[in-house]
């Protein structure tokens, strides 16, 4: 980067007959500079990262090896891996893990499929497409708190709009908060509502980068719209799809605000009276900020971290296996 800024005038400078010691030192400094300057440029990020991400990560691990209460953080009693074995045997952890997974699937799969469809529609030359694009992004700009609060009123049992609508078409009331699957479905709709537009815009940007002539070529070959979508669009935005899947997976693992506010009060923290929609994020919050047991909360945080690492190792392995096979076939 430094080299590209050199001025032509500098290059015209006559070079001396031989390098003096001063010149040599300058050359050495110059080399050092070329090598070191990039690190200097990126240093701020890594220093900040070390202070605000890496150090907390290690400190959290240290805390997870102790019994610590929030009000007396300086008093730590060593527990070794006790918190981890307790967590492994705790039904509520496995329950939260299952809930995180099911809510993750119910919210992510329809979300990405709808985003894909929406992006495909927006990709046509619609009248007022700018309006639709802004509208698609509006939910993303809404705060989780506001969205979850409104949805919890919509899904209210006695006087909520959803039950009112269900009554109109002849169904009985659903106790959205107290029943397991309705509650998970309701929370998923909040996530879907907030993130579909955002993902759609990512897809749209990727779709617009696909060269027109590929579609023309496909059309000449007699491919229908649907075939074009499957064989031109999808492969064209594959990298973006993988990216959104990664983002959504991380988001789903950390799902917290939506169920917390949907449940409200004590039920928000425990994810329902029977923990029927408690996610890992909520379990962490319950241990740390209701039971004030920071050691156990830190253990859950690390379990979530390890879980994500595991998911991505698996994903790498699978994708490597998947990419190796077709490559051999080609040869």
């Amino acid at each position, binding site marked *: 980067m430094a*080299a590209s800024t050199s001025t032509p005038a500098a290059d015209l400078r006559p070079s001396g007959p031989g390098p003096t010691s001063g010149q040599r030192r300058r050359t050495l400094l110059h080399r050092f500079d070329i090598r070191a300057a990039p690190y200097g440029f990126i240093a701020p990020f890594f220093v*900040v990262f070390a202070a605000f991400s890496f150090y907390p990560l290690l400190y959290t691990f240290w805390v997870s090896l102790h019994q610590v209460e929030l009000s007396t953080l300086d008093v730590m009693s060593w527990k070794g891996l006790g918190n981890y074995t307790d967590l492994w045997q705790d039904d509520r952890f496995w329950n939260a893990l299952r809930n995180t997974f099911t809510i993750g699937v119910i919210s992510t799969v329809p979300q990405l499929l709808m985003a894909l469809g929406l992006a495909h529609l927006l990709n046509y030359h619609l009248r007022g497409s700018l309006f639709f694009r802004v509208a698609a992004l509006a939910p993303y700009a809404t705060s989780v708190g506001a969205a979850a609060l409104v949805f919890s009123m919509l899904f209210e049992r006695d006087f909520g709009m959803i039950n009112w609508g269900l009554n109109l078409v002849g169904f009985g009331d659903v106790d959205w908060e107290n029943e397991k699957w309705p509650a998970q479905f309701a929370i998923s709709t909040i996530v879907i509502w907030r993130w579909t537009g955002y993902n759609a815009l990512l897809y749209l940007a990727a779709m617009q980068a696909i060269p027109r002539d590929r579609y023309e070529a496909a059309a000449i070959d007699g491919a229908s719209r649907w075939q074009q979508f499957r064989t031109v669009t999808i492969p064209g935005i594959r990298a973006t799809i993988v990216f959104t899947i990664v983002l959504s997976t991380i988001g789903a693992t950390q799902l917290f605000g939506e169920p917390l506010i949907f449940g409200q*009060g004590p039920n928000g923290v425990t994810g329902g009276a029977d923990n029927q929609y408690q996610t890992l994020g909520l379990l962490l919050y319950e241990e740390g900020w209701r*039971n004030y047991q920071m050691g156990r909360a830190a253990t859950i945080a690390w379990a979530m971290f390890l879980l994500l690492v595991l998911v991505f190792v698996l994903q790498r392995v699978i994708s490597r296996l998947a990419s190796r096979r077709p490559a051999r076939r080609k040869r």
Partner: protein
Amino acid sequence: MRSARVLPRTRVVGIVSAVVSLALLAGCGGSDTGTGGGRSEDGKVTITMGLFGVMGYKETDLLDRYMEEHPDVTIEAEVAGDEETYYTSLQTHLAAGSGLKDIQGIEIGRVREIVDTQADRFADLSDVPGTDHFLPWKQNQITTEDGAVLGLGTDMGPMAVCYRRDMFEQAGLPTDREEVGALWADGWEQYVDVGERFMADSQDPELSYMDTSSGLFNAMIYGSSEQFYNADGDLIYQDNPAVHDAWELASQAASSGMTAALRQFQTGWDPGLANSTFATTVCPAWMLAHIQEKAGPENAGKWDVAPAPQGANWGGSFLAVNQDSPVRQEAIDLIAWLTAPEQQAYLFQELGFFPSSQEAIESPEVQNVTSEYFNDAPIGRIFGAAAQEIPDEQVLGRKDGTIKNLFAQGLQRIESQGQSPDDAWDATDEDIQHAVG
């Protein structure tokens, strides 16, 4: 060869960026100022308060009046809506050693934890003059073993039963508050018996008798001297007959279908009040203002207040002063004034917060208060009589607030999720053991 002239620039930039990032870090370590008040050079004093929910100080003109009478004092009160959120941040501030306000509100469910673990962080108020007017049990709750008084009582929550006259009438039940009180004068079982009658005779099948069984559970628990803990701080809820009786009766009500299965103070409860879906709720004095607001003017005169079968105290708070506050004496003067009998009586008249001051309770300003909204019920007399029935000692425990919420969730398992009372007890028991462990 590359240009020699540009080299210094890149080096400078590299060094600058490294320095800047270090400075960023240093900046983060240096913020230690806290949010307490202070004293300026001209003798003016700023006092900060941390409050939660509706404590009445920000909602009435009390703070303004104090500032008028004391021109050198400025009060900045910050109110967190939800007590649980408030207490969590108070805990965090205590742990971090910064961010405490000069005055902090403390809810009854948290008092024991503060007394046990944070006694040295709050000023001892035992020598403050003019503070001997409280009910003895109220100040005992916030007194340490060494006799340090960590806070002054604000309100308390003597309990009654709020009921709908029109709904009682259509079910063939008496509507006069004395007669209604007589229906369950012998105990809470009779309150549930009346519920059976109500459900059988009500003309409107949509109506429920009570909002939730957890209100009944709370009323029974809070009428007992020992609740979830004994005086030594041991958990006794598993063997305490008071807890057993309360669970038994509340779970009976929960599985009988006479409750509206609502959660108090959460979504659903307010629309239930506004749309008149239930006929009674067990109400501490401070709940009246909430009912009046949420049930709205169209239900004025339909609600009434009858005495509960047994005196009980649900809730009530304290004001405490940060030991390290730069304006400690001024803060102490302020809370002594705010909790003085006249101000407590005023808050009862304005918002229905029942005084914890013996002197205020006996004053005509409190005894003669009636509520127009609640069909002119003499709430000063009713709650005053209930206050005298409250046990002289109420043993509080460290996790009272959490345990109360877990029992409410346990009853919800029966009420809304169809679990059997035995299963619900086991699950609740397990949750409590985990929460306190």
